[in-house]
């Protein structure tokens, strides 16, 4: 079971199926949240054996519900362990994807924001469009980034300033990026998107690397798996070199494995942010609803 964004090069999967004798059937199940909730609902009689796509926002829910079984993959030590969710080996990091501001330098005319603070500067009045954290996963990641940056008691003030500076809120990434962002169709030159998005725009856009929030995507063997031995092999494959080498190009995320080269256009347009913001998974789980509700009252009230 995977989220909707899972793509693998057909030849890579083919080769794995041939060499291992395992037939892999993919069942896509919505975004990370939908996938996690489906896994929880079906944990007594899971639809699949392995799940990929539970991300750091939802990891603690999946772990506390006992969806995943322990499996210490030999491949995990080659980089994946850097991003581990906890010490139990139930989830292994497959890739990381950072949510960052993307800018349209042509429209900004040389005056570019470098940090969260800059967004509150009158220079960038009416330039920013963000997604609603209640309805969009990059929107939520951006909010979490500001909470990590300004602290649990400081982010409200920051968002009050953003509101005064004319931030526009839309409900999803599709509208923000395809409709409001000046590099595509709209007139706002700053948008919340992914660190990897510029690689698809041929150098026309840039990610602001000091405004990133890290999301890790995990895979694990399901505790109710009917073919748990094969499931372990599939997990090894997901962490292995061949699969990791193509995640950037196929899924717009960064491999969790060390020493895997990024495609050329990435090195230039979409390098991995060096110091992204993060929050502990259980903190996100416990406060998420309250934060979003506070945000809603503050920004839309």
């Amino acid at each position, binding site marked *: 079971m995977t989220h*909707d*964004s*899972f*793509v693998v*090069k057909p030849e890579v999967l083919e080769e794995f199926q041939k060499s291992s004798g395992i037939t892999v059937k*993919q*069942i*896509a199940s*919505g*975004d990370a*949240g*939908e996938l*996690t*909730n*489906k896994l*929880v*609902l*079906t944990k007594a*009689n899971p*639809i699949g054996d392995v799940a990929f796509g539970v991300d750091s926002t939802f990891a603690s*829910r999946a772990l506390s519900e006992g969806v995943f079984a322990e499996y210490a993959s030999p491949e995990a030590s080659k980089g994946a362990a850097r991003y581990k969710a906890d010490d139990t080996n139930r989830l292994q990091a497959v890739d990381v994807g950072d949510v960052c501001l993307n800018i349209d330098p042509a429209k900004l005319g040389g005056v570019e924001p470098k940090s969260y603070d800059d967004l509150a500067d009158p220079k960038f009045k009416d330039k920013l469009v963000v997604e*609603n954290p*209640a*309805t969009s996963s990059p929107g939520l990641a951006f909010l979490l980034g500001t909470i990590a940056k300004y602290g649990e008691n400081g982010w409200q003030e920051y968002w009050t300033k953003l509101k005064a500076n004319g931030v526009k*809120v*839309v*409900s*999803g*990434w*599709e*509208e923000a*990026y*395809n*409709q409001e962002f000046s590099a*595509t169709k709209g007139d706002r030159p700053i948008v919340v*998107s*992914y660190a990897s*998005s510029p690689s*698809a*725009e041929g150098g026309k856009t840039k990610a602001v690397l000091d405004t990133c929030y890290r999301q890790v995507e995990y895979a694990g063997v399901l505790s109710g798996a009917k073919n748990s031995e094969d499931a372990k092999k599939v997990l090894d494959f997901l962490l292995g070199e061949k699969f990791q080498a193509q995640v950037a*190009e*196929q899924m*717009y995320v960064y491999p969790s494995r060390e020493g895997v080269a990024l495609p050329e256009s990435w090195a230039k347009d979409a390098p991995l942010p060096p110091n992204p913001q993060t929050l502990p998974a259980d903190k996100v789980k416990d406060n*998420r*609803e309250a934060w979003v509700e506070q945000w809603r009252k503050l920004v*839309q009230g």
Partner: protein
Amino acid sequence: MLPLAFLGLFFAWPVLAIVSLGLREGGVASVLVDGDTWELVGFTLGQALASTVVAVVAGMPLAFVLARCRIRGLGVIRAAVMVPFVLPTVVVGLAFRTFWPDGGVLPIVLANAFFNVAVVARTVGGLWAHTDRRAEDAARALGASRPRAFLSVVLPALAPAIGSAAAVVFLFCATSFGVVLVLGGSRYRTLETEIYLRTVELFDLSGAAALSLLQFLAVLAVLVLGALARRRRETALALRDREELARRPSGGEWYVVFAAFAVVAALLTPVVGLVTRSLSTRDGWSLAGYVALNTRGDRGTLAVTGIDAAVNSLRTAFDATLVALVVGVFSAVVLVGLRRSGSRVSEVLDTALMLPLGVSAVTVGFGYLITMDALPGDFRTSPMLVPLAQALVVTPLIVRMVLPVLRAVDERLRQAAATLGASPLRVWREVDLPLAGRSLVAAAGFGYVVALGEFGATSFLARPDAPTLPVVIARLMSRPGELNSQMAYAACALLMVVTVGCVLLIERLRVPSSGEF
């Protein structure tokens, strides 16, 4: 029994399972006493009501033209009206945003109406095309003005169809999801969007269950009101063939024709916008999006090509329509039979058949997860689930379109046939079928198009190696890269072409109608 079994297995069981799971968690009461909840209910019903009014007002002139006018280009109008229905809500939402950049209530209402004008035009037009013109002509001859004749003769005759159409439109609007999300500017929320968020993002099943119950009750209340309103109205009408009723418009009728053309123009505005966008890139005009339809998208965004998805759409919609036709026609016949024998059961069954339109797709989808594994062969991952879920949405529409015509069949004709020695089956074949035949074909066509455009349940259930076009479009829209968005708009254009093609094809399959009765 067949309709009930279908409804029970693929609708009632999963929905009850997921709602009761939520109820067991407790906490329902706190949601029900929350003021926000009632605001949600109010906004949901209010916007649905407003959208229904707009759709009915805009749909009536179209229904008139389709049913009563003999003018050129009617087939094209008939097909054009259907186009909005299949367009993915996210794409239409974005098109409306170019006119209302900040979203709001007005664009929500207009966009909902945009999708549903076809329901009114088709359902009302279907009956109007067969209602005897002589009563109206007589009223005119006796000195009634055109408006007077319309209000006191035509409108009462059409009331059942208008009521049917309004009920369907209301349900569609009350559960509209994508439109509210995109155009709500993240400020406006409905029960549907809130149920989705609570189920999918927050995993607050008890909250979702509470809201689902409210949605269910609200929908039920509206359906019962609709049924009560219909009860007094349905009478046998002298049904006639369209060919002898259609005339060239005369005098004041031209105003109605112009109004209809204005509605068509309004419907086509966002459509033209989409086609323009599919052809224009940052570097000028280009066919790149259309060329890309034969690929898997920019760097393999999709598991199959756009063309494969189109073929899969056609096949899935065919299966769904077939299932829905069998269940729907069966239901309609049973309902008419029960009604003739004076049974109240018919009203209960009638209402029950409509419910799938009023319940959140996500509730049904999550319900499938916890129930369908009990069916042989773990049905949760069966490719059959997609057409079955689509059929759930299509069946009520078929019932609504066929029922008014079947009910309007003059009982004396049937009695006469029976007296002359015809068996009940023969009566149905010789009397009901010829009279309702055209409606049946129209209903099948309409159902097919609805299945083609269905997104909510399909996106939830479709497997990645067998997506439909709307699922592919949503996926392409969610990726960066100009080619992906280009291809998404080209896929919309393809979906429109396929739709128009299907409608025109179905128009040709005319059932031979019988002569004068």
